[in-house]
């Protein structure tokens, strides 16, 4: 088996309310698509049930006081912020999502699979040590990475966060850490929550240079991502030489996403993943872990995006990965020519980062 999909039926249960954007159809529709494509019966792919994260594993990232608060809220109900409510029984779902991320890494490191995609909910990349935010409660990615390093499975991990929103939680957790390279490609913070992630946020102390933010303008599409991968992500990661490639695979940069203004296509996602897989083959024995983050295009592109990501991870053909033609109009309305602006951002980044990376000298 090449690719493990970490999935549990409980991941369908998480729902703040039936009309909240982070609702269960996100996964239900994707699963229908995967079943119809015969994905779960392909010998290259296996479904792996997640385990629960242990309290000690969570405490490597989060403060005990915050965890106690979450537990209390999950009994009585409560609210972290306007977008992020906690209802009864939700703590178990969070723990199972974080545990899904851990399971993915464990299966990859013990050689059961070459790479793994954790189809987990709720997402995590806005969650900080002491507080959750933006539909996120526990930072699944940070919990996975911290544990992988703590348990000596890896020394160095490269995270690519391609969610449309800046992963401010993950960034904060690893801001001083030279062993975790965090690269985020996201819609410009001046136009989207959480309003951070500018080019000068490069890390602190020993972590200086190991945090790279690539803000992109609304309307950015496949070509922009391809450019950033070629110009920034691939050269930096090759120089960093990680033991594991991790991806926060938000799907809200898709052109049908109702909350963001980006214009990536399913084919674009599949190609990005194929590049990441190639990099993992070249640098770290094919070890790659993908975690689901945001992505709210419930009625539009999600099934095709997830399918494209899985197909690329499993080494299947991605030639026919695309959205149905009815969406063409939407894409054309949303996509803009942003090449000049993106190139200026990249020039600026290379300039800022030239002292830390040989590839930018």
């Amino acid at each position, binding site marked *: 088996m090449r690719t493990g999909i970490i999935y549990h039926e409980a991941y369908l249960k998480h729902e703040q309310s*039936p*009309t909240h954007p982070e609702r269960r*159809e996100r996964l*239900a*529709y994707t699963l*229908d*698509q995967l*079943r*119809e*494509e*015969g*994905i779960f*019966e392909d010998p290259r792919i296996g479904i792996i049930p997640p385990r629960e994260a242990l309290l000690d594993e969570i405490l490597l990232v989060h403060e005990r006081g915050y965890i106690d608060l979450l537990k209390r809220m999950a009994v009585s109900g409560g609210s972290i912020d306007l977008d992020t409510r906690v209802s009864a029984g939700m703590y178990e779902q969070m723990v199972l999502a974080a545990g899904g991320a851990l399971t993915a890494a464990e299966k990859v490191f013990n050689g059961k699979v070459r790479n793994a995609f954790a189809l987990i909910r709720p997402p995590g990349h806005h969650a900080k040590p002491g507080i959750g935010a933006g539909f996120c409660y526990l930072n699944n990615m940070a919990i996975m990475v911290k544990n992988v390093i703590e348990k000596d499975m890896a020394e160095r991990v490269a995270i690519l966060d391609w969610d449309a929103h800046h992963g401010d939680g993950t960034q904060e957790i690893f801001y001083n850490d030279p062993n975790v390279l965090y690269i985020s490609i996201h819609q410009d913070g001046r136009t989207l929550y959480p309003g951070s992630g500018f080019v000068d946020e490069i890390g602190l102390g020993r972590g200086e240079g190991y945090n790279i933010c690539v803000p992109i303008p609304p309307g950015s599409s496949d070509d922009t991502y391809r450019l950033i991968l070629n110009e920034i992500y691939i050269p930096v990661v090759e120089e960093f030489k990680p033991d594991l490639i991790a991806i926060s695979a938000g799907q809200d940069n898709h052109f049908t996403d109702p909350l963001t203004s980006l214009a990536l296509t*399913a084919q674009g996602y599949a190609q990005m993943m194929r590049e990441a897989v190639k990099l993992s083959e070249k640098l770290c024995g094919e070890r790659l872990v993908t975690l689901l983050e945001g992505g709210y295009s*419930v*009625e539009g592109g999600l*099934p*095709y995006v997830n*399918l494209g990501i899985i*197909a690329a991870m499993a080494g*299947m*053909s991605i*030639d*026919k*990965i*695309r*959205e*149905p*033609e*009815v*969406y063409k109009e939407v894409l054309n309305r949303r996509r803009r020519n942003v090449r000049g602006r993106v190139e200026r951002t990249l020039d600026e980044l290379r300039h800022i980062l030239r002292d830390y990376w040989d590839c930018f000298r």
Partner: protein
Amino acid sequence: MDGEDKEIKDWVTRQGSKKPKIFMGRTGKFKKMKFVGIDVGGTNTDAVEIEDGEISYVKTPNETESVVKSLKKIGRDADRIVVSSSLPLNVLHERKGGATKIILIPGPGLDFSYLGSTVKGYVNHRGDIVEEIDPDELREELSDKKDNLAIIGKFSNRNPSLEKEVYEEALNLYKDSEIALGEDVQGLGFPRRVGTTILNAKIKRSVYSLTKEIRAVSSSFFYFKGDGGIIPDFVALENPMELVNSSPATAALGSYYLTGEDGLVVDIGGTTTDFVEIVNGRPRISEYITLFGHETLVRSAEAWAIPVGGDSFIRFSEDPLRIGPERRENAVAFGGRYLTPTDALNCLGEEIGDYKKSIEAMKEVSNDSKSLSDDVIDAFVESICRESSKVNPSKIICTGYLGRYLAPMIGRRLGCRYITPEHAEVANAVGAAVSRISLALYMRIDTDRGKMVCNGEVEDIGKRGSFDPEEIVSIAREKVRELAMEEGATEEDVEDVCLTYFDSYDVIRGGYRNGQISNCIVQISPGISSEVAR
């Protein structure tokens, strides 16, 4: 559509629109019940009648209208007729299904072009048509005419419109009975739906003809499915692959009825030998079987078969000689021209059919006909033992018409107990006859349209909100119990209802939940009817 097809189609529709009345003769409490099981094998059609525990049967060679002939002899005033037929399976075994043109409507996703010809068009996961068929491209693809046609769209069981469009166009070139649609195959899994539909296309015509033949003498009957369930004949015509592997389940049920023991059933027929394990009186069920290299969505008793049987053609010219895989004619002892394992048994002292003819014919082939016959039977028994030993049986139950001749040899070679029950030669037909009314119900509820469809019958339920999955399943369970009891099932027989398929999704338009479509298959758990309990 030609005249014959239209005729079949018409009565299928006609029969489908009214409740089938299978239960004909139960007029008073004191009437003895009479159950008829028919097993159309590769060589013979067996008809068994069970009345008050007494078994009687007729065997009719599979020539023209063998089912009709047997029914005229035996089934006239039956309370229930259940038919299991290996005819469609043999069509596939002997590669007589013809060449299939495969039209796929896969839309975006994985690359399935290796499975068939792809045309434009797409139904998405919610059953919306999001890409249209291109009529010119379709005509071009269809022009490459073959013997039959399989049309399969992704998510077609959520919206069959595109498949129907291709079907309408294809009627210019194909008869209705030569076309199979993916929508008739329940379950998600496009590659498996493709596999199932291709095989449906190959066997549809033979199942149509068989059904028509039987209908001529019996106004209604049940087909026995591969998983041991039984369904009214007209329901079976939609997805005939469900019938294709019925023989193992009938063999299991029949053997258990005749012996009351678990073990490995070795069913030695004319064309094939089937193997099925009985555990706690029932065969194991495989959710999805693979047949002839096609992965399918067919649920079936776990069984395996080898194309070696009593009537198999023998290749004496090969060294070592080879038995099968095809059957050409009857054994010489039954009027055929080619020597078979049955004839070899006659040369070794058995008296099956016109055994003298077998001996004469064998002498023409070899001076030492006895030793040649030994070689044939040795090869025959060896291939059966090789397959049996896959499960290390502690007991074998030999059935089929050569079962009792070969059981001691097989048992000795495997070193295990062997049983050949009385009536073993018609065990499959017995299995069909003793089956409880393990009726399957295909239910679809569409809350947006306010419709419920049960085995093809449409009911109005009025517009309403969503159901809980549990609620849907319990409606289906009640419904199938009710239907089975209408067909004459006893209360005891309908207690155990199993859910074999469930799928439900919300229809959301513009951010609102408009309705819910649920598909569900439930089935009275297969088993022996309490009415004939040993």
